[in-house]
Structure formats: structure tokens, C-alpha cells
């Protein structure tokens, strides 16, 4: 039993040890990347061993207690790790992707001065992500949650001498911090009402939470909906949902491995993980679930469309991450948590592969990121081109690839269980159109970068070194086969119950039966009857026609395309609103506070007035001291007369 305990702790803490060692002591590049990759490899292997242990054993969670956080009366705050089915699946994905990213960044960051610092930060980030997933209490959750946003702050601002990087990481951290406010409030409420921070206790009295209610504006609000709302706001900021998504495109300032690891696979999915982990919290209120689906759906469609007229290759893939996150949120909102997690894992693989391919193109063309300055790279970089093509197909949900399995499941669940109201139809139509738009923008990149005319001036472009090619090919293979292989673990009769303590309401059971029926009957056959597959394939063909065969169409229809292009290029004005309205409002408010409050109110009125009056009063008194003796005597005699008068008055004579 002791071995399992050591292995669980070590699986999470290897990257921490490696990160700290490289960060503090290591100077040489070679030792740095060896140490970090070794750490990551060990953690990946121990997680695989744990997974085998978990599968072979009786499938109950492996729990390890680390320490007692605080011994305050009736608040048991113990920090520990717990590997249940959900945590193991996620840890597998995170450690695999992180390991491949470590190998990838050996090649990508070769000649960078901050090489050692980069590796230590990447390892520390992987530790934070693993700790977030593996922890078994709310304090550890919040610690992991904040530390991943901290490490994303460091990694986005990795090129610290660039002002744009400083702006981007400041904006990213602030928006994450805003979400953390709501999240922390939800945590405090949850801990207060469950009297403990452990997940087990939270799941134990979910029903108790469901029927306690707080009155806000003196109408009773169910506690779980309130906490669910707060958690959703936290998830929105972390997983870049509609109003709080503006930081993700700017976070492309960081190096590409960072975008691949953080802003594609692991960090942005923390919000989805949180909502799935506390699915029982959301399950009790239909209204909240509807809100989540609507926000997810609008994100899926409109954020995806923004990628259509973007020139920077990394920002296009970032916008595609935004839309895929929208899909996951729709799945969460519909109650299909395990499908959302399935899509999350599949998305991690093909999105990381896309980013790696983009990275190798950027390295090949000496840090050129504008797709219109690249072209015809298929001949010089065949492997990158192939990997990009495969993961693009998987992203757009073409059948044999893994993307199809998870995306199609989401669409079929959406068709079955979205409410029959205007919003329900809107959600389903938005996702459907999303399926059309995704292949459009991703293949636009493929055609212009890999096929199309060669309009880059770099002459001979050589294929990137093996450290970049090797992880990319593995991820490409995963994005092909992973879907089919891992489907039975997530969906179907003998699937692992990913989300613990789900209340078995009628909606959930109906949903499960529907999914089991589809899976048993074969997803492909079911998909043929669905419009989703048609839209995906149509999208691919459409993009082939527009961007490959007839590139001159876009130039000819310049006129009436100008207005939508302007809207999409300015990201529906979100950036404008953020910079001009919100930032100016708060800085104006702060400046007035400073000017009015501090200078005027406190310094000028209170202090200066009081001191001036004292000085003036003192001057008046000193004028009594004239230099004439007789005036002094006059005053003395008047005073004497007054005193005599008073004493006579009080002694009753007068």
C-alpha cells in the first residue's frame, strides 16, 4: 500500500521537483531539458501504472492524505490527492501532452536566451495542472486554479522585453483574477455550508445544499444554483467563454509550445473540468444549464467565424480553441459531462498537434506568422503538412478521426435534449453552423500555407529537427486513433462513471439511454442520418473550392464582403469595448478617487484648513500684546474688576 502512496505523490510532484531544480540551480541548456523531460516522463509512467492499478483493481479511487491545513474548530481542512476515474483520465491526457510539449520545446526554443527559465516554468505549470486535477479538496483546487493562471502569466510574458507581451499577460491575469473572485466566493459559500473542504463531504450533502436557500433581493435563491453560477463565472474566465474570452487571442504572444500546452490542451480546459467535477451542483437548476448552453453555442459559432479573416496562424488556431471550448460548454450545459470530457481530451490531442505544426512552420520560416507570407510548404515540409492535414480533418469532425466521435456525440445529444424553445433551436442551429465554419477556417490555413503559390522569400526551407517532428507525429497518430480506442471508456454501458455523485434525475437517465442506443448501434451509421456530418464534409469541400480552386472569388467579391470582414477583424468590437469603455472607466474612476478623495478631500480640506485656522487664531491673540504699558495695566484692572464682580455675584452680595 505504501508503494501506491509514494507513486501517487510522486506522479504529481516529479514536475515540481524538476521545475524547481532547473529554475534555481541549473545553468546549462542540455541539463535543463534533460531534467525536465525526465521528470515529465517519470510522472507520465507513474500515472500509467496508476491507471493500470485502477483498471485492474475494483475501480475505486486511490486517496492519499498529505497534510492538515488548519486546525480551526469544525472546519476539517485536509489537503490530499485522490485519483478517481475522472482524475486518472485527465491526468493521463495532461501528462502525455505535457511530455510531448517538453520534447517539442527542446527543438523550438533552441537558440532562446531564457531556455532554462522556460523549461522550469513549463514543468512547474504541469505540476500545477496535475495538482489541480488530482487534489481532493477545495483549498487544493483553488491553489491549483490560481497557480495555473500565475504560470500562464509568466509564460505569456516570457518575452518580457516586448511591451505587447507585458500588456497581454497583465490582461490575461486580470481577467482570470476576476473569475477567481467569483470562484473564491463560491468556494467560501460551499465550505461554509458543508463545514469542510473535502470533495467527499461536498458530495455527501449535495441534497442538503440543494434545498437550503439564501434570499437575495428577498426572493429565495437555491444555494446550488448560486454556487453553480459563481463557479460558472470562474469557468468562463478560465475557459474563455464569450464575454471574458478577449485574453486568449492576445495570449498568443507567448512562445508556441506555451500556446500548445496552456492555451489549447490544459489550462483553458480547467473551467470545463471544474464544471464537470461539480456537475452535481449545476444539475439542480435548469435555468443555469440553459445559460451555459446558450453561451457555449454562441461562443462555438461566432468566435469560430472570427478566424475566417485572421492573418496570424497562431491566432486562427486560438479562435478555433475558443469555438471548441464553446462545444464543450454546450455538452456541459446539456448534462452530458462525460461527453464534454471526451471532447476535451480529443480536442487536446488534435489542437496540440495543430499548434505544433504551426510552430514548426514558424521555425522553418524564421518566426514568420502571417499565413499570406507563407505558401507551398508541402514540398519542403511534408511531415508537418501531413500532421497539419490529419489534425485539421480530426478538428472538423470527419468520421474516421477522433474529432468526429466526440463532436458528433455532442451534436446528437444537442439534437435530442435541447429544450423545444427558441433558445433550444438557436443552440442546435449555432452548433450546426459551427460544424460548417470550422473546416472553412482550418482548411483555409492549410491551402494557403501548404498548397498555394510560394510567396515567402526564404528560399530553401528545410524540415524542422526530429525533436519537433517526433511529438507532432505522435499527436497526429493520437488524433487519428484515440477517438475510436477510448470511446468505450467514456460512453456506453460499461463506461467509467466520470462525474461522481450525479443525482440520477430523469433527464440524466434519459440522456444515458439515448447515448447507449447510439453507441451500440454504431456511431457512423447514426451520423449518416444526422445533418452534422454533411455540414462538416460540406465545409471541407467549400473551403477547397474557395481557397484552392478559386482564390480570385474573394478578391472579386471584395465590396459586399467588406462589412462582415470589418466586423470579424475587430472581433465584434469586444476589444474596443474592453479598451475604451471598461479600462477607461476604471482608470478614470481611480484617477477621480485619487484627485477628489486624496488631494482635495483629505489633504486640502481636513489638514490644510485645520492647520491654517490654528495659525490665524494664534496671530489674532498675539496682537493683544501691544508694547504700551498702560494698555497692559488697563487690561489688568478690567480683569480685576471682573473677578471682584464675579466673586461678589456668587457670594450673593450683588
Amino acid at each position: 500500500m505504501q508503494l501506491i502512496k509514494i507513486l501517487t505523490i510522486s506522479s504529481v510532484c516529479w514536475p515540481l521537483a524538476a521545475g524547481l531544480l532547473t529554475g534555481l540551480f541549473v545553468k546549462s541548456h542540455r541539463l535543463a531539458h534533460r531534467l525536465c523531460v525526465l521528470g515529465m516522463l517519470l510522472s507520465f509512467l507513474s500515472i500509467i501504472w496508476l491507471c493500470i492499478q485502477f483498471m485492474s483493481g475494483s475501480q475505486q479511487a486511490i486517496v492519499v492524505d498529505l497534510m492538515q491545513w488548519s486546525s480551526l474548530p469544525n472546519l476539517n481542512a485536509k489537503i490530499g490527492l485522490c485519483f478517481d476515474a475522472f482524475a486518472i483520465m485527465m491526468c493521463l491526457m495532461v501528462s502525455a501532452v505535457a511530455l510531448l510539449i517538453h520534447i517539442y520545446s527542446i527543438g523550438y526554443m533552441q537558440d532562446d536566451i531564457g531556455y532554462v527559465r522556460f523549461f522550469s516554468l513549463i514543468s512547474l505549470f504541469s505540476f500545477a495542472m496535475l495538482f489541480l486535477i488530482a487534489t481532493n479538496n477545495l483549498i487544493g483546487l483553488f491553489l491549483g486554479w490560481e497557480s495555473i493562471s500565475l504560470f500562464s502569466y509568466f509564460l505569456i510574458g516570457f518575452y518580457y522585453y516586448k511591451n505587447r507581451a507585458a500588456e497581454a499577460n497583465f490582461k490575461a491575469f486580470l481577467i482570470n483574477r476576476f473569475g477567481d473572485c467569483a470562484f473564491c466566493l463560491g468556494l467560501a459559500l460551499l465550505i461554509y455550508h458543508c463545514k469542510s473542504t473535502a470533495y467527499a463531504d461536498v458530495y455527501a450533502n449535495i441534497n442538503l445544499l440543494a434545498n437550503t436557500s439564501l434570499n437575495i433581493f428577498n426572493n429565495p435563491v437555491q444555494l446550488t444554483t448560486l454556487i453553480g453560477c459563481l463557479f460558472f463565472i470562474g469557468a468562463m474566465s478560465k475557459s474563455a467563454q464569450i464575454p471574458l474570452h478577449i485574453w486568449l487571442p492576445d495570449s498568443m504572444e507567448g512562445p508556441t509550445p506555451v500556446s500548445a500546452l496552456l492555451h489549447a490542451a490544459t489550462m483553458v480546459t480547467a473551467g470545463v473540468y471544474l464544471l464537470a467535477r461539480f456537475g452535481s451542483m449545476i444539475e439542480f437548476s435548469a435555468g443555469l444549464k440553459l445559460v451555459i448552453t446558450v453561451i457555449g453555442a454562441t461562443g462555438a459559432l461566432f468566435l469560430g467565424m472570427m478566424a475566417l479573416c485572421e492573418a496570424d496562424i497562431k491566432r486562427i488556431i486560438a479562435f478555433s480553441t475558443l469555438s471548441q471550448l464553446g462545444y464543450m460548454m454546450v455538452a456541459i450545459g446539456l448534462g452530458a459531462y462525460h461527453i464534454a470530457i471526451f471532447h476535451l481530451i480529443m480536442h487536446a490531442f488534435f489542437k496540440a498537434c495543430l499548434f505544433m505544426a504551426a510552430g514548426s512552420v514558424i521555425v522553418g520560416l524564421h518566426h514568420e506568422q502571417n499565413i499570406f507570407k507563407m505558401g507551398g510548404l508541402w514540398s519542403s515540409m511534408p511531415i508537418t503538412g501531413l500532421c497539419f492535414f490529419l489534425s485539421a480533418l480530426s478538428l472538423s469532425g470527419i468520421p474516421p478521426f477522433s474529432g468526429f466521435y466526440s463532436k458528433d456525440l455532442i451534436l446528437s445529444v444537442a439534437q435530442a435534449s435541447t429544450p423545444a424553445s427558441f433558445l433550444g433551436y438557436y443552440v442546435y442551429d449555432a452548433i450546426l453552423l459551427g460544424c460548417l465554419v470550422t473546416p472553412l477556417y482550418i482548411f483555409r490555413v492549410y491551402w494557403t500555407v501548404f498548397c498555394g503559390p510560394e510567396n515567402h522569400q526564404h528560399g530553401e526551407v528545410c524540415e524542422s529537427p526530429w525533436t519537433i517532428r517526433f511529438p507532432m507525429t505522435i499527436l497526429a497518430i493520437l488524433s487519428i486513433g484515440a477517438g475510436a480506442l477510448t470511446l468505450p471508456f467514456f460512453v456506453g454501458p460499461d463506461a467509467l462513471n466520470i462525474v461522481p455523485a450525479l443525482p440520477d434525475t430523469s433527464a440524466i437517465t434519459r440522456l444515458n439511454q439515448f447515448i447507449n442506443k447510439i453507441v451500440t448501434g454504431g456511431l457512423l451509421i447514426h451520423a449518416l442520418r444526422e445533418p452534422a456530418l454533411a455540414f462538416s464534409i460540406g465545409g471541407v469541400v467549400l473551403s477547397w473550392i474557395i481557397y484552392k480552386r478559386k482564390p480570385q472569388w474573394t478578391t472579386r467579391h471584395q465590396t459586399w464582403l467588406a462589412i462582415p470582414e470589418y466586423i470579424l477583424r475587430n472581433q465584434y468590437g469586444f476589444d474596443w469595448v474592453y479598451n475604451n469603455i471598461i479600462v477607461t472607466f476604471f482608470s478614470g474612476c481611480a484617477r477621480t478617487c485619487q484627485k477628489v478623495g486624496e488631494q482635495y478631500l483629505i489633504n486640502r480640506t481636513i489638514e490644510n484648513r485645520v492647520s491654517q485656522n490654528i495659525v490665524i487664531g494664534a496671530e489674532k491673540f498675539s496682537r493683544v500684546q501691544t508694547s504700551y504699558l498702560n494698555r497692559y495695566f488697563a487690561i489688568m484692572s478690567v480683569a480685576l474688576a471682573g473677578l471682584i464682580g464675579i466673586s461678589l455675584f456668587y457670594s450673593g452680595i450683588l
Partner: protein
Amino acid sequence: MNIPILSLILWHGLIAAIIMSQLARSSIWLQKSTAVIISMLGCGLTGYLWYGFIPNQAFQFVEKVPWIAHLGAFYHLGVDGISLNLVILTMIIVFLSILSICVIQEKNIASACTWVFLVQAMSIGAFLALDGLLFYLFWEASLLPMFLYIGLCGGGNRWFAARKYFLFSLFGSLFFLVSILYLGLKAGDFSFSSFYQLQLNLNEQLLLFTAFTLAFAIKLPMFPLHSWLPDAHTQASTSGSMLLAAILLKLGGYGFMRFNLPITPDASMLLAPLMTVLSIIAIIYIGFVAAVQSDIKRLIAYASISHMGMITLGLFVAYLMPGSVQESTRIIGISGVLVHMISHGLSSAGLFLCFGLVYHRLGTRDIKDYGGLMRVMPIYSGFFMLFILSNIGFPGTAGFVGEFFVIYATCAANLWLAGLAVLTMVLSATYSLGLVKQVFYGRVNNMQLLTVMDINWSEKLLLGLLSLMIIGVGIAPDIITASSVHAIKNTVLFVKSGQS
């Protein structure tokens, strides 16, 4: 325990001050080594005290000697959970400020150390005193060395700032003296236990409450009376502002815990809404003001005012909780206040220390003169980042623990208050990271920066010591909460009596 350990700790500071004042003319090396050895001795003494302290007992190591017998004022010292932690914090911060003096300053080290030791002696006296008059004596006495220290070894118009600090604190503590005398005469003798047993009617309590709050609100700068702190900090030297931020602000908080809550429970019950509103204003308004500061030290000073707002919020939210809430949430709230006091002490001392190192190299406090410091001094920016994280309240550092418990207690009292209190996380992030962005990121535009050397081994040792403590408290806050739960339970009993 026959050794009078508390008097030893108390007068250790004074003896040290006398020794240091004699060394003014000896060699620099001698001054530095004696100062460090003496303050290490002090830390040893407190370590012995901490080792001998039994967590779940009321006042220990009590020493009672008649001082002004016919008035009933005794030289009465004792330590319980709350004051033990604050004494340890004082000793650590004094040790660090002595080290910072030795590391940074080249001349008049002896005089700076005398002032530091005097402040230590007086503030430890205030924390240990269990007698009203003795508390007032040390409360006033701690004001003088700080006034002279800012005045003598400060920055530009230091005398203005010192005078302002002195007058503000003096104004508050005069009413405080009147109320202590009133209590002393009414209760017969001046010891705290007899104060606590006094049955005062409501308007008596209201008057006493306003007198106490006036004194402590100025010392712990609450919102309307805070304008002395930024001036005092900008003009004080590095170790001066470390002392001011870490120790002297805690006197106000300690005073609230020792006087306002137990002696005037009904009045606190009545005025709790007002106090919470003031502390919420302090948190949000000062957060905004801090965001637009152009002087780094002034920004850190406003940050500590915002943190102090958090402390008063934690204290008075215990009264806003409805009767149904168990007593344990109040204990959590107030132990959160204590932890936040200590963590704020550590993190703001760290920030001022870091800034002192840069000010020693560049000599300017204006943010515009800095930029791209990360390229020039990477290790230094690592340490500075850690202190900023603790200032923000990042989980895993000391700043988060206190803040989280206070928010936890406010949740139990009133959700809207908690919503506003949580905003402090965003506001502290804006001004702290705004500072980091302007100072560390971006291109190096001030050419003088390129000639600056990164921190040497002694500065690394100093900052390392402090960051170890911050991370230690962050990961295991039990060091503070375990020993102080019993003491806080007593204060919370008074809170309960206030409600019933």
C-alpha cells in the same frame, strides 16, 4: 518558570538600544556585528518563549509587580495566543530590518539600530502589557522612536511626514488615555481582567467605543484617518517603513482585539455596520487610489491600508452574523484577522525591503524611471514577484490564508459584503501587477539601469529568509492558528455576550 522571560524580552530592546548608542564612533564592522548578534539573541529569547508556550491556556508567563500601588496600576505582563504571535512577528521584523540596515547603509548604522531597537522594545511592551496604564505607556512610547527615526534618517521633507504622523497618533491616544483612566477608576485597578468584568451601560460603552476606535483607527489607518501613512512611508528609510508597516500598524489591530471587542461589546454590536462600511470603503476606494500612484512606496503604503481594511472587516463582521451562526465561524473570522495581520506584516516588510534595495541602487522612487528591470536583475525580480503574490493573496503564500478566512466569515454574515470584500482580490491584482508591468516588463528606457548589479549573497539571504516565512505560513497556517485559537475563543465569548 522562575526566569522573568517576558521582562527579559521586553527590556532586551532597551539594553540593545543603549549599547548601540555607545558604539556610534567605533568601526563599521563592529557596529554591524553587535547589532546582528543582539537581535539574534532577541530571536533566541522569543524562540524559548514560543517553545515554552502551552497552546490551550489563557495568559502565561504572568509577572505582576506593583507599579503605582495606590492607583491600582501594576507592572503586569502576560502572553496569550494573540500576543505571542505578534511578539514573534516583531522580533523577526526587527531582525530583518537590522540586517537590512547592515546590508544597505554604509554610515550612521549605530543610530539607525538604536531607533529600531527602541521601537522593538516599546511595541513588545505594548503587546505584552496586561495593565491598562502600562499598555498606554508603551503605546505612546512606541510613537516617539518612530517619529525620530523618520525625522532623522528619512528622505526629502521627512520632518513634515514625521510631524504629521506624531500629531495624528497623539490626537487619537489622548482620548484613549481618558477612557483608560475612567475605566481604571471605575474598576478599581487597571488590569484587563477587571476591565472585562465591568458592567457598563450602553451610552458609557458608546463613549468608550468612540474613544478606543479613534485611537486605533488612526494607528491602523482606517479610511478617513489614513492620510498620514503614505507620507510617513515615502519619507521613512527602508528599515523605518518596514517597522512602521509590519509592527506599528498591528498595534491598532491588537488594540481593537484587546479593547473594543471585550470591553464594549454592546457598542460594537451597535456600530458594527458603520465599521464594516468604512472598512469596505477602505478596501475598494484605497484599491482604486493605489492603482494610479506614480510613487512606488506610496503605492505599497496604500496597499497596506487596503489590507488593514480587510482586518477591520474581519473584526466587525463577527457582530453582523445572525444568532443562528455557530460560534466557530466567528473564531475562524478573527483567527483569519490575526493570520492576515502577520502575513501583511511579512509581505509588506518584504516589499519595502525589496524596494529599499533598488532605491539604494538607483535613488529614485518614481515608477517612470524604472522599466525592464527583469532583464537587468532577474533574481531580484523573482523575489519581488513572490512578495507581490503574497500581497495579492495568492494561495500558497501567507496573504491568501487571512483573506480567505475573512471572506469565509463575511459569507456567513452577509453575502453582499462578501461580494464587495472579494473585489479586493481583483483590485490588489490591478495595482500590484500594474506596478510589476511598469517596473519589470518592457524595454529598459532608463540607461542608468544597465549599470545596476543584481543582488549579492547577503541580500539574497535576507530576501530568502523572508520568502521562506511567507511560503511557510501560506502552506501551513497552523503555526499561527493552533496557538491562538484558545485566546480568540475568549474574545469571541465577549462578542457573543454583546449579541445576547
